C-alpha cells in the first residue's frame, strides 16, 4: 500500500516540468529552419505545452487538497516484480541466445512464478507454444526471429 496523494503530487509535478521543457523546446526546434510553416509547428507544440501545464497545475492542486488514501499497485508484489524481471530478462537474453532457447527458458519460469506447479506439464506446454510460435512466424510468415549472436565472435 502506497499513499496515493504523494504519488499524484509527484506525477503532477512531472507533467508540469514536462510542459515547461516542451514549451522551451518548441523554439529550439524552430531555430534551424526559419519559415512561416515552422512557426505554426512551434505554435502547435506550445499549445500542447500550455494545456499540459494548466492541466498539471489543476491536478497538483486537486491532489494537494485531497484527503489521504492508499493505492494498491498489485495484489501480489512478489509475483508482480518477478514477472517484470522475467519479461525484461527474456527480451535482453533473446538478443544473445536467440528466440528458441530464450522462450524455452522464459515460459516454464514464468509459469512457475505465476504458481503453476506441475514441472513436466509446464515443460511440455512450453515446448508446444515455442514450436507453434516458431512455425507460425518463422516458417509460416517468413519473419526472421532473433537468432543466437553469442557465438558469432568466436568463429
Amino acid at each position, binding site marked *: 500500500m502506497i499513499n*496515493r496523494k504523494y504519488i499524484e503530487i509527484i*506525477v503532477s509535478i512531472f*507533467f508540469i516540468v514536462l510542459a515547461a521543457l*516542451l514549451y522551451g*523546446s518548441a523554439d529550439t*526546434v524552430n531555430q*534551424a*529552419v526559419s*519559415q*512561416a*510553416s*515552422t*512557426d*505554426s*509547428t512551434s*505554435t*502547435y*507544440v506550445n*499549445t*500542447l505545452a500550455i*494545456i*499540459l501545464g494548466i*492541466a*498539471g497545475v*489543476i*491536478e497538483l492542486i*486537486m491532489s494537494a487538497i485531497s484527503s489521504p488514501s492508499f*493505492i494498491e*499497485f*498489485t*495484489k*501480489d508484489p512478489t*509475483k*508482480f516484480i518477478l*514477472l*517484470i524481471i522475467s*519479461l*525484461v530478462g*527474456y*527480451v535482453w537474453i*533473446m*538478443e544473445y541466445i536467440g*528466440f528458441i532457447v530464450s522462450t524455452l527458458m*522464459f*515460459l516454464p519460469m514464468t*509459469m512457475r512464478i*505465476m*504458481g503453476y506447479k506441475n514441472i513436466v506439464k509446464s515443460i511440455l*506446454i*512450453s515446448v508446444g*507454444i515455442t514450436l507453434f*510460435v516458431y512455425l*507460425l*512466424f518463422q516458417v*509460416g*510468415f*517468413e*519473419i526472421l*526471429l*532473433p537468432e543466437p549472436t553469442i557465438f558469432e565472435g568466436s568463429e
Partner: protein
Amino acid sequence: MILLDALQAVLAFDVLFAIFIGTVSGIIIGGMPGLTATMAVALLIPITFSFTPLIGLAIMGGVYAGAMYGGSIPAILLSTPGTPAAAATALEGYPLTKQGKGGMALKVSVISSFVGGTFSVIVLLAIAPILAEFALKFGPPEYFLLAIMGLTGVISVASGGLTRGIISGLIGLIIALIGTDPMTGMVRYDFGIIDLYEGVSFMPALIGMFSITQMLALTGEKSIASGDIDLTTIKREKMPKGMWPFIGLGTGTGTVVGIIPGEGATIAAFMSYNMAKAKSKVKNLFGKGNPEGIAAAEAGNNACVGGSLVPLLTLGVPGNTVSAALMGGLMIQGLIPGPELFTTHGVITYGFILSLFIANIVFLVVGLFFAPYFAKISQIPTSILVAAISVFAIIGSYSMNNSLFDVWLMLIFAFAGYFLNKLNFSLSAIILGMILGPIAENGFTQALTISEGDSSIFFESAVAKILWMIIIVLLIQPLFAHFKDRREKAKAMRNE
C-alpha cells in the same frame, strides 16, 4: 457493381475460413475474463499483415464481433463477464443460470447479439459511403477539429475525470511529436536514437498498454473465472416471448452510441440495460434474472461494432480502442481511411463490411450449439495464459519491423501504462492521442500556414462550427456529471 465484386471476394473459401477462425478465436478471447477484443486485435495485426488485405481484415473483424458476443458466455454461466461490456449481462444471466435457465439466457444472448451486430453493419453499409463522400469537403482546419473531437470523445468518458483524461490525450499527442516534422522534414525529439527517426510506432505501444499491462494485472489471480460449470444442467430452451422490443431498444442505442467517438460497448450495454429496466413491465425481476435485461445489453454492445467503424472508415477517427487497433491493421495494409476506401479500395472495404455479416452468422451458429463449452476455456489457469500471451506480445511487437527496439518500447509502454492506469489516467486516450496526433498536427500547421497565422480559420466554415459545438458538448458533459456527483455526495453527508 463494387458491392457484387466484394461479395464474390468474401465468398471465396480462404476468406470464409478466415472469418470463421477469426470469429471463433474472438469468442474464445472474449470469453476469457481479463483478455479484451483490443488486445486480441492488437496481437493479430503482426500475424495478419502478411495476408492479403481482405483476409487480414476479415480475421480482425471476426475477432471483434466474436469477442463482443463471447464475453456474455462466462457472464451468464460463471457470473464473470468476459469483457467489461458483458457486465450488465452478468446481472441478469447468472441468476437465471442459478434457476436452471442458463440455456435460455444463452439463447437470448446470442440472438440479441446477432440482431444488434447485423443491424449495425447494415447501418455502416448504408451511411459510411455517404459520410466518406462528405469528408471530401474537409480541409486542414476541419481535420484538426475532427481529431480533437475524436480525442475529446474518449477524454469525456475517462474514469479518472476530465483533467486526467486531458493529460492522457496530451501524452499521446506529445509522443506523436517524436520523429520527423511533417512540415519541415526535420527530425525532432529523437534523443539521438536512430530508431525514433520515423516516430514511435503505435503498434508496440498498443500491444504494451493493452496486453502486457493486463498480464501484470493478472498476477495474483489464481484462475480468472471462479465457480464450475455443470454442462448437464444446461438444457436447450426456447426463446422467451416479448424479447423483441428490448432487442430493438438495445440495437438502436448501441448503434448510435457506437458511432459517437469515445462511447464504447460498455456504455452502450449499460445504457440499453437501464433503458430496458425503465421500460419493462416486470421491473421487480431486474437483478433476479430478467431476460429482458440480457436482450437489451447484448444487442447494445454488439451493435457498437458496426457503429464504431463508421467514423473509422469514413473519417479516419477511431471511436474506441478496438477500432484504433483495427486502424493499425488498415494502415499496415496500406489502406488510409477516407473516401478512397470506398472507391479505389472498394472491394476490400465492402468485403470487410460484408465479412462482418458472416461473422455474425458464425457466432450465431456457434453460440446456439456450443456456447457452454466455450465457458470451460475461460477456466484455463492464469499461469499458462500470462506466459503464453507475453510471448505472443513480445514476438508480435518484434515482427512488425524485425526490431528488438520495438520490443523494448513495448515494455516501456506496458510498465508506464500500468502505473498510469493505476492512477486513473486513460490508456485509451493515450493511444488515440498517438494515432490522431499526426492528423491533428498536420491539420493545425497546414491551416495556420494557409491563413498566415490567423487562427480564425478554425472557426470559419459551417463544419468547423458544428465540430466546435460537439467538442464543447463533450467537454461540458463530464463537468456537469462531476458537479452533480459532488452535490449528491455533499447532500448525503449532510443527511448523515
